[in-house]
């Protein structure tokens, strides 16, 4: 029998277990995970971990292993793996916490997470290594500055396997049907064009409200145009707040488009693939998207409106604003990082070869514009790809996106509520209050 005295005896035992757990908790993970010291020599392989949604990086690496990087492949054979990208940051944290990161992997999607990795010494300072290998000039200055801005550092901690510009892609035929002869240069012209399209029975904008970010990008870009390129950094530095009237005005401008129904019925239910499909089947006129969508645009099976029927307009200026229409919203997609725990001679050989050849391989095989120097432009390149390269080359400066400097919580709250602006169910003031509160923690 389990007597009362024995029950009393169990209490100290449970207390001891609890105390032991607390002690273990306090001791665990209290500092930098072990094994972050760089090792010399090669451990025999070169492991890459990416997202299942992105096959360009893995296929380009495999192509390099078979051809231009065969020497590195001999030193450290490439091993490719992929996991689902929808919870990428969460999985990356678990891997990092267990000191199980691959030699090279896609970086954290949230810049703040990468900042934690950098602070914890988990990722290789590539500026130093590229300099030492003598290939630092293989990174385009625009890409380098974007990465530096992203992680608020003078050094580069990831490689720009993409270099994207963002803006409004439009269906020229639908614009002509609505009598819009020129792509809009200002926000007012954009709103007027939307009104004309709606009147002509054409859905003005297509956006993946379910994902949120295609809507919040509009808010961020409006802020860059109206308040200048450093407007969001001022928020992060505590010099301004998203709830200041001039910042709220940006969210209100986007919410006004939503309230007019310009994003169509139930924009909050549209996901990325559906939105892409809508645009490429003539379901709407304007589509704010990054140049990573070139692959979809250039695919005749997906693109039912014809690649020649797609135009590109930079995010319009805001009348009287401090920003310039020439400041191109740009990003490097999800770049790749090298981990200090796996850094060795094999990784160094691969880094050198990637810097030398990745740009050519990605462009010729996947039509992917990267942040690496390209030596050989493919002869048969689509006009849209050329257009993107021209815009990147000619842009005097670039800006990041709305959530680039936010905390993970701020990013999440922004993107989960972005759809509300497109459906008109959330006012600009409410949206900015939510995001500001999340950023303040």
């Amino acid at each position, binding site marked *: 029998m389990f007597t009362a005295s024995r029950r009393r005896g169990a209490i100290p035992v449970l207390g001891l*277990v*609890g105390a*032991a*757990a*607390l002690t*273990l*908790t*306090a001791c*665990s*993970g*209290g*500092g*930098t*995970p072990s094994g972050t010291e760089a090792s010399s020599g090669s451990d025999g392989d070169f492991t890459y971990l990416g997202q299942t949604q992105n096959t360009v990086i893995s296929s380009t690496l495999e192509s390099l292993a078979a051809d231009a990087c065969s020497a590195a492949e001999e030193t450290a054979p490439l091993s490719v793996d992929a996991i689902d990208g929808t*919870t990428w*940051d*969460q999985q990356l*944290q*678990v891997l*990092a*916490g*267990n000191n199980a990161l691959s030699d090279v992997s896609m970086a954290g999607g949230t810049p703040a*997470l990468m900042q*934690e*990795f950098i*602070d*914890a010494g*988990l990722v290789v300072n590539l500026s130093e290594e590229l300099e030492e290998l003598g290939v630092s000039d293989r990174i385009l200055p625009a890409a380098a500055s974007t990465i530096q801005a992203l992680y608020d550092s003078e050094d580069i901690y990831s490689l720009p396997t993409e270099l994207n510009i963002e803006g409004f892609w439009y269906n020229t035929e639908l614009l002509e049907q609505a009598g819009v002869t020129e792509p809009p240069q200002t926000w007012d012209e954009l709103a007027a064009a939307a009104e004309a399209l709606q009147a002509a029975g054409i859905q003005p904008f297509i956006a993946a409200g*379910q994902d949120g970010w295609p809507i919040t990008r509009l808010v961020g870009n409006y802020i860059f145009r109206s308040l200048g390129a450093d407007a969001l950094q001022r928020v992060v530095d505590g010099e301004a707040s998203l709830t200041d009237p001039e910042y709220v005005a940006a969210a209100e401008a986007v919410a006004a488009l939503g309230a007019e129904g310009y994003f*169509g*019925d*139930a*924009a*909050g*239910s*549209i996901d990325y693939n*559906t939105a892409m*499909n*809508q645009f490429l089947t003539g*379901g709407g006129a304007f589509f704010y998207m990054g140049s990573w969508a070139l692959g979809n645009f250039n695919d005749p099976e997906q693109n039912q409106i014809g690649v020649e029927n797609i135009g590109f307009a930079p995010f319009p200026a805001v009348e009287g604003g401090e920003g310039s229409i020439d400041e191109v919203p740009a990003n490097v997609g999800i770049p790749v990082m090298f981990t200090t725990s796996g850094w060795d001679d094999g990784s160094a050989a691969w880094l050198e070869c990637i810097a030398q050849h990745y740009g050519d391989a990605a462009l010729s095989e996947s039509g992917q514009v990267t942040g690496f120097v390209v030596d050989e432009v493919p002869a048969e390149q689509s006009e849209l790809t050329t257009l993107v390269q021209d815009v990147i080359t000619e842009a005097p400066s670039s800006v990041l996106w709305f959530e680039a400097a936010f*905390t*993970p*919580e701020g990013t*999440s*709250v922004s993107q*989960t*509520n972005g*759809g*509300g602006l497109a*459906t008109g*169910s*959330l006012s600009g003031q409410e949206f900015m209050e*939510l995001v500001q*509160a*999340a950023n303040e923690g």
Partner: protein
Amino acid sequence: MERMLGDWRAVAILLGPALAVYSAVMLVPIFWSTGYTLFEGNAIRGFEFVGLANFVEFFEDPTALQSVSFTLRYAIVLTVLQVGAGYGLALLYVFALRRGGAVIRTLVFFPVILPTVAVALLFRRFFEAAPAVGPVNSLVMSFGGENPDWFGQPDASFWVIILMDLWRSMGFYAVLLYAGLVEIPDELLESARIDGASGFRLIRSIVLPLSLPVLLSALIFSINGTLKVFDTIVALTNGGPGTATTPLTVYMFRTAFSFGEYGYGSTIALVLTLMCLVVTVFIFRSTRRDLTKG
């Protein structure tokens, strides 16, 4: 038997392995997680002792309080509906559907075995407003209504979730309660009928008190299951619009694994555990009264 159970070596051999496994996979993580509530940080940037700051933050966090509100509302509404509907169906099985009862029981139980994600996708299609219009919206529009955006409005999303989970789970509670009802002796029911009890009076005075233990089990199953809801909501609304349908479990997951705040995430988990405990104790206490005594 008594002599064997009095032998501590026999007890250790019989219970030891199971207790060790249970402790390793249940007790240690619970204590470990409870320990985290006093810390801030994660495995990458390290942990810092913050005392009870996470609990203070919880009660000042509007999203957490909204999650508590949603979780309780969801748990109460769904428990009442699914146990109520299950009990109604069980009574139907026992007292009305003598022939063909097995077929109907199977049909009603069928959604229980469907994968959660498949059910959620099915309901997303049913209530779709764009790009295609789902059957529900088509029906609404055929009566002259507009194309409602069910998943864009907090209240509408809430009721779609309730409807989906009710459809998915009431068959389980019907079978569970049916098992309790068939245990009631026929002689007892017959003698009650001879004494003049029938219909609602029979259920109120005989069936309900005698099926109370299994009804109580169903209530506890339901309230604990609904308080810890995760997968159905993630698959159907992902907590949206905004955070309007975000239960504590989803908020805990996001806080710990998306925001990298293990301490705060553990605090949310502890609060949820305490909520489950309090509700379960409350149900036990409130049903101690003997209903046969009027």
